[in-house]
C-alpha cells in the first residue's frame, strides 16, 4: 500500500537521522571534555585520541549490542506471543553468561575461525538455555506463555547460581573478572572487540529481517501461521538459532546488559504499531540509540566514576517491567 509504504519510509528516515545524530553526538559525552575542533583539526591531540580510540568504539559497541538485544527481544515476543519475553526472561542471557563464565573460570584461551572462545561459549550457553525453553514448549503443546516465561526465569536463576558456583570455585582474579563482566559494560578500547561479534550479529539480524513477515504471522497464532503456509517448527528453530547466535555474540562483548530487549521493542510497538515489516528495522535502530545513550549517561552520572551500563539499564528496566505487568491491557 503506497500510503503505508510512505509512512514506513518516513519512520525509517527519522530513525536513521536519530541514529546518525547519536553516533556523532554521544562520543562527546564523558568526563573528559573534548571538542569538535580538537577532533577535526589535530589527529594527534588528546581529544582526538579519546574520540577515535575510546569513545567512538564504545558508542559503536553500545549500538551493536543495543540493536541486537532489541531485535532478539522483538523476535522472542512475536514467537512466544508475550511482550515480556526477552533474552533475559527466557534465560538466554544467563545461558550466555554461564558459557562465558565457564570460559573465564577454566582459564581457556582459544579461538575458532576467528571467533574467540568466549563468544563461542556464550553462544553455546545461549543455545542451551533456548533449547531448554523450546523443549519445554514442545513437550507440553499449548503451554500458556506465562508458564513458558516462568520456566525461562527458573532456568535463568538456575544458570545464575551455577555462575555463582563458578565464581566461588575461581581464584580471585578470575572471580573478579567474572563479576565485573556480569555487571555488563561497554568499556572497550579500539575496534577489535566490535569487529569480532559483528559478523555473527549481522547474520542474526539479516535472518530476522528476512523473516519479518513470519514474525507477523507468528503473532496471529501458530495454527493460523501453519494454515497460511509456514513451516512453523522450522521457522521457530531458525529464529531461535539466529537470536541465540547474535545474543551470544554481543553478551560475550558487553556482558548481560539487561532489559534493553524489553523496553525498546515495547516503545517501538507503542509508536509504530504491530507490523514487523517496520518494527524489525525500528527496533534495531532504536535499540542502538537507546543503549549507546544509556552508556553516555553511565559515563557522566556519577562523575568522576563511570558506571557499567548494565546498572543503568537495570535501574530503568526493573520499574518498566513492573509497569508492563500491572498496566491495564487494551
Amino acid at each position, binding site marked *: 500500500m503506497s500510503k503505508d509504504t510512505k509512512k514506513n519510509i518516513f519512520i525509517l528516515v527519522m530513525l536513521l537521522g536519530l541514529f546518525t545524530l547519536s553516533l556523532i553526538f554521544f562520543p562527546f559525552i564523558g568526563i573528559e571534555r573534548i571538542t569538535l575542533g580538537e577532533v577535526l583539526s589535530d589527529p594527534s591531540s588528546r581529544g582526538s585520541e579519546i574520540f577515535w580510540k575510546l569513545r567512538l568504539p564504545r558508542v559503536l559497541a553500545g549500538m551493536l549490542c543495543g540493536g541486537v538485544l532489541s531485535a532478539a527481544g522483538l523476535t522472542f515476543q512475536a514467537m512466544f506471543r508475550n511482550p515480556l519475553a526477552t533474552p533475559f526472561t527466557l534465560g538466554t542471557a544467563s545461558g550466555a553468561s554461564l558459557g562465558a563464565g565457564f570460559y573465564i573460570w577454566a582459564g581457556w584461551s582459544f579461538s575458532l575461525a576467528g571467533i574467540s572462545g568466549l563468544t563461542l561459549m556464550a553462544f553455546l550457553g545461549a543455545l542451551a538455555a533456548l533449547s531448554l525453553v523450546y523443549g519445554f514448549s514442545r513437550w507440553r503443546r499449548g503451554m500458556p506463555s506465562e508458564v513458558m516465561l516462568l520456566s525461562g526465569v527458573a532456568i535463568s536463576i538456575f544458570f545464575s547460581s551455577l555462575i555463582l558456583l563458578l565464581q566461588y570455585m575461581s581464584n580471585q582474579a578470575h572471580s573478579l573478572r567474572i563479576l565485573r563482566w556480569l555487571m555488563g559494560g561497554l568499556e572497550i578500547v579500539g575496534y577489535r572487540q566490535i569487529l569480532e561479534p559483528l559478523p555473527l550479529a549481522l547474520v542474526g539480524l539479516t535472518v530476522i529481517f528476512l523473516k519479518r513477515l*513470519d514474525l507477523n504471522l507468528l503473532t496471529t497464532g501458530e495454527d493460523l501461521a*501453519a*494454515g497460511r*503456509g509456514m*513451516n512453523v517448527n522450522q521457522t521457530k528453530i531458525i529464529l531461535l538459532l539466529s537470536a541465540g547466535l547474535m545474543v551470544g555474540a554481543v553478551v560475550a562483548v558487553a556482558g548481560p546488559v539487561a532489559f534493553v530487549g524489553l523496553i525498546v521493542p515495547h516503545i517501538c510497538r507503542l509508536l509504530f504499531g504491530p507490523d514487523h515489516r517496520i518494527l524489525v528495522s525500528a527496533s534495531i535502530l532504536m535499540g542502538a540509540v537507546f543503549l549507546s545513550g544509556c552508556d553516555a549517561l553511565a559515563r557522566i552520572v556519577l562523575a568522576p566514576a563511570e558506571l557499567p551500563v548494565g546498572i543503568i539499564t537495570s535501574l530503568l528496566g526493573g520499574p518498566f517491567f513492573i509497569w508492563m505487568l500491572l498496566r491495564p491491557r487494551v
Partner: protein
Amino acid sequence: MEIILAARGFSYRLGKKTLLEEIDFEVRAGERWAIIGPNGAGKSTLLKAFCRILVSGEGLLLVGDKPLSQYKQKALARWISYVPQASGRDDLFTVREFVVMGRYAHLSAFSVLTRRDWEEVERVLDLTGMTDFAHRRVSTLSGGEQQKTLIAAALVQGANIMLLDEPTAFLDPYQQSQIHDLLETLHQDAGVTLVEVTHDINQAALGHDRILGLRAGRVVFTGSPEELMTGGVLREIYGRSFKLFPHPETGRTMVLP
C-alpha cells in the same frame, strides 16, 4: 468431478489417546461439506490434519492427486486454506494488514509484497464486504466482522479448498446468516470447495451437499442431507434422540434438540 481431498484409513493419536481412528473421507471438487458430531469427536483435528497444523498421523491423506507428505507447507497452503474460530481475537493489526498475511504462501524468501498481492487483498476485501473496515484494528471488530476478516485472509491465499472450523459459533443470528450468505457466494460464484465443521444440524442439512458424521474419532455417517435427517442416523452420531418435524413452508425435515 475428481476427488481433491481424501483420507484413507487415517488415524491420529496424541500420546495414548486416539483422536481419529481409520477415517475414510472423500471430497470432490466443488462440493460443500459439513462435518458434524459431538464435542471431542475429532472434527477440528481432521481439519488441522489436512492443513498439517497437526503433524504426523497414520494412514494416508490426499490433496489433489498427491499424498499430503509430498507437499511443502507453502505449496499445501496454495491448495487448502484454513479458517479458525474467530472468538475474541486480540490482533492489533488492521484488517488490511491482517488479510495481506494470507499472501505468505505466494512470497519468495525475501518476503517482499508486490502490487499483485495488494490487488488481491483489495479484491477479497470487496468480495467479503470488508472494504469499509480495512483500516480498523481486528481486535475492535465484532465477532461476525472478525470471522469475515479470517475468511478474507483465507481467500487471498488463492486456494481452491477452504476448511472452516465452526465459522458461525458465537455469532448472533443476523451475523450467522451473513456468514452463510458469504460462504454460499464463494461456493456458487467462486467455485471454492468448502468443508465446514458445525454444530448446527439444520444448517448442515440445508446448505451443504454432503455431510460427514463423526463420533469418538470414527466416521459413523457419510451421506446427503436427506439421509442424515432420520432419527436413527442422528442417534448414532449424537447418542440421543431428536424431535424431527417438517419445515412449515418447504416441507424439508428439521430437528429440535
